[in-house]
């Protein structure tokens, strides 16, 4: 994949940081996360992401994207994490965008246009209630019909699925051993019910029930009958990288805030930052951030360069980021004392966002087991 130069990445990073620092306040997050808010994300910010070209940064130039790679996407996701952004970047830009880029045939390219412009919100619904984190567990069934296909089954809660105009749903074609296929399902399809709910970190999503959902033949992405397991894995890996980057952004922000707090908070006649035990704790948080960033960066580079061991690096990054996020998130609360436990401060919200990042697409323990299974 063509990549930005370091200078270009720096420019992108600066403009991302600038946007989130100046145009996406914590108060904005509070407004958007309120149960009473209509959509749970900022339509205005979403429009701006589109205008800035962020929603197509990793999409090919041939379809109107910037033609950059996952590293550039990660720079944006890190910014989003640092500001607790609520918009459906993960589901729409990363997952659906990735699926459409990798699987859709040329005559289906109009879908990707809507991802890049942001005019449609997309979600990618793959995991199932009895599958857990297992990537190859697909029991949703697609049966051929006169119009195209009929879909039946259940999908686990997915972030942003409640807001999606279009859902990409995985299902096996024909029977339980059929090839894994991807289907574009409009959210108003008959037979599709979405059970919307808030996530731990006050974003929203939905679980799906598909009960005889009828879709046209061209709803199937790519070549009919082709097993898309490898593509699904690639999409999920993009998701992993995206949440790793998001977590890096969130961890860095919350660590900075915690350092500042300890400099200001006085007990026993002096700022808490003077106590060596707490200084070392802050150092451990800081070093954990660096480890997460480095591991994510190595994985991104491997992915963008199509290195043969990229998947291993991506999975290792998820383990590292999971460890770091668990430590940084919980210690940020601990070091803020009672204040860290309030809804009013940002700290607890970073803690919850980091907990989500840890669990999305599989947690550190799960990836460690997968890596262990792959050892010679």
């Amino acid at each position, binding site marked *: 994949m063509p990549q930005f130069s370091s200078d270009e990445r720096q420019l992108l990073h600066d403009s991302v940081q600038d946007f989130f620092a100046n145009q996406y306040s914590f108060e904005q997050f509070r407004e958007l996360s309120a149960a009473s808010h209509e959509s749970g994300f900022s339509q205005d910010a979403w429009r701006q992401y589109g205008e800035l070209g962020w929603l197509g940064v990793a999409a090919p130039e041939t379809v109107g994207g910037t033609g950059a790679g996952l590293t550039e996407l990660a720079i944006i996701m890190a910014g989003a994490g640092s500001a607790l952004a609520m918009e459906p970047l993960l589901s729409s830009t990363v997952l659906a965008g990735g699926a459409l880029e990798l699987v859709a045939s040329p005559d289906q390219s109009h879908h990707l246009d809507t991802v890049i412009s942001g005019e449609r919100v997309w979600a990618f619904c793959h995991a199932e209630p009895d*599958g*857990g984190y297992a990537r190859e*567990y697909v029991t949703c069934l697609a049966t051929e019909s006169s119009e195209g296909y009929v879909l039946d089954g259940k999908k686990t809660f997915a972030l942003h699925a409640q807001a999606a105009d279009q859902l990409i749903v995985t299902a096996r074609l024909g029977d339980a051993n059929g090839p894994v296929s991807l289907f574009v399902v409009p959210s108003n399809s008959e037979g599709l019910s979405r059970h919307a709910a*808030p996530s731990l970190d006050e974003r929203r999503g939905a679980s799906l029930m598909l009960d005889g959902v009828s879709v046209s033949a061209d709803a199937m992405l790519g070549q009919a009958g082709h097993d898309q397991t490898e593509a699904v894995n690639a999409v999920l890996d993009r998701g992993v990288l995206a949440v790793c980057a998001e977590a890096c952004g969130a961890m860095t922000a919350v660590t900075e805030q915690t350092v500042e707090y300890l400099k200001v908070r006085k007990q026993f*006649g002096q700022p808490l930052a003077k106590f060596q035990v707490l200084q070392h704790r802050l150092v451990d948080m800081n070093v954990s951030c660096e480890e997460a960033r480095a591991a994510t960066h190595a994985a991104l580079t491997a992915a963008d360069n199509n290195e043969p061991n990229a998947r291993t690096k991506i999975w290792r990054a998820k383990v590292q980021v999971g460890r770091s996020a668990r430590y940084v998130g919980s210690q940020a609360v601990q070091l803020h004392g009672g204040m860290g436990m309030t*809804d009013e401060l940002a700290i607890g919200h970073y*803690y*919850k966002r980091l907990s989500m990042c840890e669990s999305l697409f599989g947690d550190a323990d799960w990836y460690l087991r997968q890596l262990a299974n792959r050892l010679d």
Partner: protein
Amino acid sequence: MFIRTSEPNSSLESFRADVRAFMAKELPEETRRKQTLGQHIERDEYAAWLRRLGSRGWLTGKWPKEHGGLGWGPDEFAVFGEELGRANAPPVVPFGPTMVGPVIYSFGTEEQKAKYLPGIIKHETWWCQGYSEPGAGSDLANLQTRAVRDGDDYIVNGQKIWTSFAHWADMMFCLVRTDPDVKKQEGISFLLIDMNTPGITVRPIIGITKGHHLNEVFFEDVRVPVANLIGEENKGWTYAKFLLGNERVGVVDVGKFERYIEGLRQLLNDTKENGEPLSKDPDMRQRVAGLEVSFETIKALMADQLAAAQRDGSPPLIGAAALKVRSSEFQQAALQTIMDVFGRHGMVYQTDALHPGFNGDVVGPDEMAGFIYEHLYRRAATIYGGSTEVQKNIIARGALGL
């Protein structure tokens, strides 16, 4: 080493059976249902349950008989707590029974004992604790809420924070500064304040759980009769230390911890990965085994400390600190493991399912919202009741002479 074990106590097991039977019979079905789901219990329902416990004298079982208690030793107290936790009954709110009650019967006048103790025994009075302030958390002695003598009253001005149930409370026991010109600890008084007194404002603090039990309490020219002073003016810190000593005694919610592990095992059975129950997953099994090791160690620590308490008449403060550190860490580890199971369900947090009267459907397991609430709440287990950092300082100074 390995010298002292608790004296065997045959009446303890019949007491345990009695408590267990009471829980089975007297815990209202509706309350039990709410507790299972982690739904919020409102004031009246909670108070009714506490009054039931009070009718057996069990809120204040540990008090000496001369003050209306049952004279329980530390082992009866532990058994009662265990069975309460095992039954998943709403816990005893400690502010009256464990905290201000003993202070009143130890340092109060006869009038004060007669006025306040019966209300605590029967839970006719809801108490809250006015200790922490924005500038006085771990450094409690730094408190600034001022009480100035004016005739037969004190005029109180200031602010308390992290006040559990202040929005429900009838009375507050409050540490106030009565002398700002001496060493911090020597200018503090212990004052009982009627929460209905004009000038008191209670402001809710919403937690990361999205729930409410903590508050800020503001005092603006609040008149408190001098008759509400406990003991001597400026000796409040002594009474507070006595109270803290009482509070931190080997109180580990064994019953609740058992329920965490049971709940976890049930969730592992019910949650599938790749079509197989997680209870078969070797990594999860190892984590459960690890939690059980930690839990057994905590129970063993408790048993040794109970034995020491029986010998010495009072519990070891250093041991209590160690137990607090490890049990709070265990709590967090057990709940984190449960959260890791919930990751498979998408980590949905439906706080509206925790409100009584919720009638909708939940995404994922029924108990998910309640356990997520508990996990988020217990993020504070290493902060409240003396943070882990403070407990380690206590051990360093008190046990290691550092």
